């Protein structure tokens, strides 16, 4: 057998390319053009009788800031990226909202970056509605939108590019403490210049009169819709919320942004993403949630996990590691 070395491997390839004696060019048919298009990103699974559709909004790719992880040096972060064979100095952040059909309710949980971002990002992000349609779900049929927190990648999809309502027939259910915080003019006045101030402005832009007409607040510890219980997981934002979806004996934990990308913040729960508004509280929350997920062997649906963003987690080193579920060809 041939030895596996780079030289052998690719010199063999080069050698073969140089000889033109292969006997398979008897076809006179035209070559097939490249498709140039990715599969629509959606995936379906059941939790008891509840049907969940993950429809990816796509990703964002950007040059990583020096303080992307505020308490860790960039070269250490780069080493963590190298461990998962990702490009140095670059962040790729996936966005994965879900749609839940409980039988009585058709609910979208978080809305992605919005249709306007599709053009802005050259189609890399803002895909949620397209993928939802590919999965056979009409946005007009959505009767409930559940918002976990008020960052742009979770709320901007409430509006289409022309600022009309994405879900014209839906109630918009929001966490009481999150709504209170971001709609409070005093908090807005005291907000740190820059990112937090910008987020206040974005919240006020998105929550226009038509959106506000449909907004209802929900409480932590209670069911938001049948089978979906809200759980306070603050830190990332003051009112940041996760959910337990339960039906029959089956459960899934929809973590929202308890961690940002798993290859950094599940592995290293003590790393503080600059997105975490109260980083210490976010870390406490992270450890509690992940200890529970490990102890209960519960699946987690992670907004910033790579599509289809459903995984089990295990302890690993001083943190945790996600084990993506095997793609199920049936549901």
């Amino acid at each position, binding site marked *: 057998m041939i030895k596996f070395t780079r030289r052998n*491997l*690719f010199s063999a390839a080069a050698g073969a390319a140089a000889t033109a004696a292969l006997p398979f060019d008897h076809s006179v048919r035209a070559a097939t053009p490249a498709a140039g298009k990715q599969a629509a990103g959606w995936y379906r699974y059941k939790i008891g009788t509840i049907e969940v559709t993950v429809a990816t909004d796509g990703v964002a790719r950007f040059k990583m800031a020096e303080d992307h992880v505020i308490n860790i040096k960039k070269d250490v972060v780069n080493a963590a990226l190298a461990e998962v*064979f990702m490009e140095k100095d670059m962040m790729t952040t996936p966005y994965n909202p879900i749609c839940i059909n409980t039988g009585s309710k058709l609910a979208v949980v978080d809305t992605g970056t919005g249709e306007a971002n599709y053009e802005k990002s050259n189609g890399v992000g803002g895909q949620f509605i397209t993928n939802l349609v590919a999965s056979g779900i009409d946005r007009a049929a959505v009767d409930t939108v559940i918002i976990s927190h008020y960052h742009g990648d979770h709320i901007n999809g409430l509006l289409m590019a022309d600022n009309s309502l994405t879900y014209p027939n839906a109630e918009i259910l929001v966490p009481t403490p999150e709504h209170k915080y971001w709609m409070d003019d005093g908090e807005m006045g005291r907000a740190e210049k820059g990112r937090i101030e910008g987020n206040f402005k974005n919240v006020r832009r998105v929550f226009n009169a038509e959106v506000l007409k449909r907004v209802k607040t929900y409480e932590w510890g209670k069911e938001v819709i049948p089978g979906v219980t809200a759980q306070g997981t603050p830190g990332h934002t003051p009112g940041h919320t996760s959910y337990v979806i339960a039906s029959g004996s089956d459960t899934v934990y929809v973590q929202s942004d308890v961690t940002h990308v798993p290859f950094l913040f599940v592995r290293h729960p003590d790393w503080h993403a600059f997105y975490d508004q109260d980083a210490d509280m976010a870390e406490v929350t992270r450890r509690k949630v992940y200890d529970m997920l490990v102890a209960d062997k519960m699946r987690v649906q992670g907004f910033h996990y790579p*599509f289809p963003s459903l995984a089990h987690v295990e302890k690993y080193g001083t943190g945790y590691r996600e084990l993506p579920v095997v793609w199920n060809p049936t549901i």
Partner: protein
Amino acid sequence: MMQLTRRKLFAGAAAVTASTAFMPLMGRSALASAPAAGKQAAAFYRYKVGSYECTSINDGAVSFPMPDTFVKNIPKDQALAAAEAAYMPKGKVTVPFNPQIINTGSKLVLIDTGYGPGIAPSVGLLPAGMAAAGIDPKAIDVVVRSHLHPDHINGLKTADGKVAFPNAEIMAPSQDWAFWMSDENMAKAQDNVMMKNYFANTRKILSDVAGKMTKYDWGKEVAPGITALATPGHTPGHTSFAVASGSSKILIQSDVTNIPEFFLRNPDWHVAYDIDPVKAAETRHKFYDMAAAEKAMVVGFHFQFPSIGYVEKAGTGYRLIPVAWNPTI
């Protein structure tokens, strides 16, 4: 914040369900409830290797009760523990199947064909995946088999026994062809049910195309930029492929391992399907040592869809780092 324990969680949920007074929002919507879709996405995924466009297609997956000798050289308890650690269904093992299609620009090449029709509802999904990906079976120029096990060859035929890729040249590794088509080898295998069935299947699927089968040799290109690599052990002629275009390259391993949760983590475990398990283990070590050293992207027929990842050394074995789904190509 509330304590995050399962007990509290569900006590909370139960209490809420019991009280009906808290949510003022249930009665308003006049929408009919949407019926469940009940349908999974057709599973295909595109990626580029240089100028080549590749499509990974999931032919499906099966979960079956773990046979006592699924891993021949370790106690079953240990194999069950590995399955449990990978969150497979209790007492079962889950094996996915992922053929690959490569458009080199001049040739449209299918590597392995999946199970074909009639095995189980959860497999034989290659035609559906190809349809969803917009690939016409008639447009396939070359069908290359890595080896001649049923999950790699049976999809050559449609339910009515016709060749599913009517315009394709059909290629098989010389050494596997010689092994499986030998009547002498078949006669020797009659007391081994698995092998007996495999021999019979090879003839059932391939007899009528035997005349037009192209046999290929290791170390040579089977199509432009796609080189056959000798990785014997799993079967005598088992083959992997290096796909190279521009400065990019990947390794399509075929069955150097069956499921990575078992045999990449534990390369010395012998899966029941390896015909020469010692040689297969030796091949595994060589292949993954190279893949890890080269940081090569590896595509695995039995990896979980989209079945693409990188290999790192971990303990006495290796671990697969799956690539993150790219929403564009």
